[in-house]
């Protein structure tokens, strides 16, 4: 009997210790940085999806997978890539005729819904949310025509919101973040996938604590 009690106490102590360690690893405020790589295609995928891996940075995310998707409601089908590309270019790309570059913005103002993202880490869980995507391409020959070779390199950046609906160790967090990177395409004329690489930061807080704020905020709003 005495031996059983000792065993139970030992297991209990270990469980407490493990829980303590887990909490210590994931504090209420978390600032994460990581580098990512991946592939995607605006033209041949519906909805357009970019996905890949987290290749370096914070160990709590390293080895995880990521993806983003863009709402393509109303875009021409992928079966007619030329028409689809023309639509994307005419709808989202804006030309700066002074400095000779194009900027495309994908957000809640240019799309029916804001683009969405997700990170899935095999041990620590998932998180996701919405994001803004801005991309820039240079008009190298300054002719106002987006030539195929000018589509081979571009840069992108944006901000993201982290939703409160994560899982695992990320379940309690919400917050925001930002990212920047570059994209390469070997053969845009034949609609090859874009290769993308970049850096991302996530500024997270414990939203379980924020639940109280939600209630008070709701009450305040009702009273106004």
């Amino acid at each position, binding site marked *: 009997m005495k031996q059983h009690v000792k065993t139970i106490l030992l297991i209990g102590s270990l469980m407490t210790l493990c829980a303590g360690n887990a909490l210590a690893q994931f504090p209420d405020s978390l600032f994460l940085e990581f580098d990512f790589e991946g592939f995607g295609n605006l033209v041949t995928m519906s909805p357009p999806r970019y996905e890949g891996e987290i290749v370096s940075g914070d160990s709590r995310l390293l080895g995880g997978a990521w993806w983003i998707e863009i709402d393509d409601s109303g875009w021409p089908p992928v079966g007619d890539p030329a028409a689809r590309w023309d639509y994307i270019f005419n709808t989202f790309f804006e030309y700066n005729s002074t400095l000779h570059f194009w900027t495309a913005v994908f957000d809640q103002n240019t799309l029916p819904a804001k683009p969405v993202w997700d990170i899935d880490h095999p041990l620590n869980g998932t998180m996701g949310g919405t994001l803004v995507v801005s991309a820039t391409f*240079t008009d190298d020959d300054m002719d106002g025509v987006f030539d195929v070779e000018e589509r*081979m390199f571009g840069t992108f950046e944006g901000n993201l919101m982290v939703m409160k609906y994560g899982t695992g160790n990320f379940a309690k967090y919400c917050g925001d973040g930002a990212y920047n990177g570059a994209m390469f395409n070997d053969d845009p004329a034949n609609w090859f996938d874009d290769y993308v690489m970049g850096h991302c930061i996530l500024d997270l807080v414990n939203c379980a604590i924020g639940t109280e704020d939600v209630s008070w*905020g709701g009450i305040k709003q009702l009273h106004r």
Partner: protein
Amino acid sequence: MFKQLTAAGVGLCLLLAALSAPAGAALLVETFALSGTGSFMDSPPYFSGTIISGTLSPATFWFRIDDSGWPADDPFTTPNERWEYIFANYFQYDPTPGAEGWDGHFPSSTPGELAPEWRFDAGSGDICGGLTTSFTITIPDLNANGILEDNEYANKVFSIGLFCYINFGTGEFESFCGQGNCAGTLDLVDEETGLEEFYVPSAASPSGRLYLRDTNCHTGDEESSWGEVKRIHTR
């Protein structure tokens, strides 16, 4: 899969070629991390500081936002008129459940507004700079009530697209143009003055990038060949 591998190969080759290129070669990839301060209460809003790491370090930087038409704050009244104007004209609320927040774009979509300007100054007359292609600040609505509260304003994020313009380049950068970007945090450090801490990570791993070239740059009427000629003659 073949397409992906090919694209990745080309991308990496371009990067490796750029990274291993000597100064003065056709393509440069510069890296940077930034640490500084600034305030929307200043006229014009000016964020400046030090390039703390990367190939451009040691150097200084600044970003300046055009505030034509913005009101000043009357210190004897509340709320802050200047911030109220900025918030109303540049920020839009996104009510997506669970991801509520405000995105602010500078310039706004109002025709005629100027893009923010920027400079990186490496000293000894080596300056590159230009305009931003995007300048986006996001504020989370943590309690999802649609009302901006002090604790939400205190911690923001931003991303900036950079376009490097030959007109602003001097010294080592006088013939270079190109593009780049960075992302970071904007945290309120002084409620009285509206002073914000402007940070692009990090000292250990600089995340900002500039992709510069010294061909096909222009100064409006002039072509970059003039920049190259000037550079050769000043060596």
